């Protein structure tokens, strides 16, 4: 057992730190640090810089533009990327649809989509959830009917993150309504410019426009946009959802938040002393730090194990990463609200181009919206209750 990094690993970490902190524009990283929303342009710019170095799609097969990195390198890459407040490579592109196309797509699909997906020339969004199909995703009803060389799609998707930016959407659609729930589903790629698609924003409790409803009204999709086999889409969706095991804990991001909270709590006062010296506050923060350190160690155990584990087998510890990671992310947003005190109150979003100066310190404006927004973290990607069900069944055998 040797828990120190090798010289090569340390050199890699240093190079990653240098690259992220010098090549990605400081203006973009500052927005991430403050929790401000990124524009599509910010996300695409950052991803292009990463991609020019081959660092946008490190998880892809090497033949498709991925990196042949050790799990430790992948870990260090993620950690440094998040610590430097670099925007995550666009998840829909990099973690979701890219690996599915690389694994199950035909050659023409790989040739056309993968380069554009890596460079973010195509901004993908995900069409999975429906109004009646949330945790019970397999009950989805959006219908794709085969007509000659096309599918005709009718139905509705919901919670479609950043559909307003989406050039393409990857959808789960029902191609066989007579089959058992999981067996009649296909994985279809749809150009968002196709006639019959309507995107309608859903404003979330923080006032943000992140998610949307997407309506499909007789949308005609070339049959060549089917990924893999018809009616096998559920398998590809499971592959996609199981893909991101370690990144989901967002350990690096939470570490960066802890550090930020400490810096801000040194600027704010609780009575005579800086807030960071208030025993009650600092103990609450330390309690979260301990959980985060434990999660980081858990993630390292999982990473170290991945090298040895047979494909498809999971270290039981991996299953807790999302559960624990999501709760920690949420707790940190609560602490940030506590830091900013009364300046948690002013609502300063969507002032329609008004140039009024910020009320209170700049770092206070996003505290409450981020707290409200982060309630999503324990809901999306399979709610924490669903995660409990999965662990109970798959790991504990209950």
């Amino acid at each position: 057992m040797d828990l120190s990094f090798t010289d090569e690993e340390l050199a890699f970490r240093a190079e990653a730190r240098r690259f992220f902190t010098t090549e990605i524009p400081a203006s973009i990283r500052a927005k991430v640090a403050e929790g401000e929303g990124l524009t599509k342009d910010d996300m695409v710019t950052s991803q292009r810089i990463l991609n020019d170095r081959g660092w946008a799609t490190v998880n892809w097969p090497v033949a498709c533009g991925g990196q042949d990195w050790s799990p430790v390198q992948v870990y260090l890459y993620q950690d440094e990327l998040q610590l430097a407040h670099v925007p995550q490579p666009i998840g829909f592109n990099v973690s979701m649809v890219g690996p599915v196309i690389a694994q199950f797509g035909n050659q023409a699909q790989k040739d056309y989509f993968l380069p554009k997906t890596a460079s973010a020339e195509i901004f993908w969004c995900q069409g999975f959830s429906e109004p009646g199909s949330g945790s019970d995703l397999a009950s989805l009803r959006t219908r794709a009917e085969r007509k000659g060389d096309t599918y005709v799609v009718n139905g509705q998707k919901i919670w479609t993150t950043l559909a307003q930016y989406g050039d393409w959407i990857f959808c789960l659609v029902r191609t066989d309504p007579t089959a058992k729930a999981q067996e009649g589903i296909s994985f279809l790629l749809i150009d968002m410019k196709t006639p019959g698609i309507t995107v309608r924003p859903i404003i979330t409790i923080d006032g943000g426009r992140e998610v949307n409803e997407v309506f499909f009204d007789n949308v005609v999709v070339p049959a060549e946009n089917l990924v893999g086999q018809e009616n096998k889409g559920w398998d590809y969706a499971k592959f996609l959802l199981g893909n991101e095991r370690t990144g989901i804990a967002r350990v690096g991001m939470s570490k960066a938040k802890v550090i930020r909270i400490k810096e801000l709590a040194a600027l704010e006062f609780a009575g005579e002393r800086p807030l960071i010296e208030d025993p009650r506050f600092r103990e609450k923060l330390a309690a979260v730090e301990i959980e985060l350190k434990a999660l980081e160690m858990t993630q390292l155990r999982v990473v170290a194990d991945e090298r040895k584990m047979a494909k498809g087998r999971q270290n039981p510890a991996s299953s807790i990463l999302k559960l624990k990671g999501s709760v920690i992310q949420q707790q940190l947003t609560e602490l940030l609200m506590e830091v900013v005190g009364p300046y948690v109150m002013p609502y300063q979003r969507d002032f329609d181009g008004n140039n009024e100066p910020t009320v209170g310190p700049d770092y206070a404006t996003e505290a409450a919206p981020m707290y409200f927004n982060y309630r999503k973290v324990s809901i999306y990607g399979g709610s924490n209750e669903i995660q409990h069900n999965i662990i109970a069944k798959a790991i504990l055998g209950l």
Partner: protein
Amino acid sequence: MDFDLTEDQRLLKESVDRLIAEQYGFAQRKKYAAEAPGWSTTMWDLFAEMGLLGLPFEETLGGFGGGPVETMIVMETFGRGLVLEPYFATVILGGGLLRRGGSDSLKGALIPKVTAGKLKLAFAHVERQSRYNLNDVTTTARKDGSAYVLDGAKSVVLHGDCADKIFVTARIAGGRRDQDGIGLFLVDANAPGLSRRGYPTQDGLRAAELTLTGVRVNGDHIVSEHALPLIEHVIDEAIAALCAEAVGTMQVMHDTTLEYLKTRKQFGRAIGSFQVLQHRSVDMLVALEQARSMAVFAAIMASEDDPIERKRGIAAAKVQIGRSGKHCGQEAIQLHGGIGMTQEYSVGHSFKRMTMIEQLYGSADDHLAVLAKMGGLFTRPKAA
């Protein structure tokens, strides 16, 4: 970075696992507890034979040359078996003080005996008023020629009733809570002026109250006249060892509870089919895995020489172990229902040991306050 065990570590783990699996079942443990000292001398001899009593000592003195990882391996397995023997007191506490603080002559004389199972040690530092504060010492050490004379009383000395020699803290100079002026002395169990009263502890182990009246200590048994840094390092190592023991104990509580959920039937089906119990069982697993991670972290930090960094890591681990342990323990009892409340059944014994580990050397809240005051764990990385 890798979490793999070396070949030697793997062999150590296999042999200790086998020992506990074959010789330390619940019924066997009950038999050992009923023997005269409250533990099994046969087991003790077996530990010696296997090299476990020499685990952390240098090889030139007959030891095994093991570090914190080897200790973690042994203690985790001992935690599964709820080992009763004075291993922690002798090898981890006493052995740690001897190894880090003893003169060459003392080490040369005592380590071979400890390794052979012929000498048991203990560490007396708790006093009526001290709680877990290691520098709160009122027992006095008065210089008399080249000797020291000790007077005072020590409490809850783990396995102090069976120890052959006992490390005792006493104040040479300064006020009650001064960091300086604390001496460490090795006192023979039969030294004139030492009296002790042994008793069982809640977890089925043993401890003792000591009274020292004019106890004389000479020569190399005067271990240190400036002992606090040494003591703090050894206690940090001891906490790391307890973290590993706690993980073993939690693992058993988790496994036992899971097995029970699968076999116990109510309302015509296994109670593990009920979602509310499934989710609580998952939360036990989460607590266990987080604790396991921090026990590994504690093992890494135990050998850190910078006392500040070491303390940060150890305090963090102790908090996690305390919180996870309490969660696993209380849930294990609750999910078992009535049977979990009985002496006849194993899970309550694990719960009791876990509860005592939570308290030893300070609760989770105590260590949280320490860590918070030190500024927590994470700091901004240096620029590229």
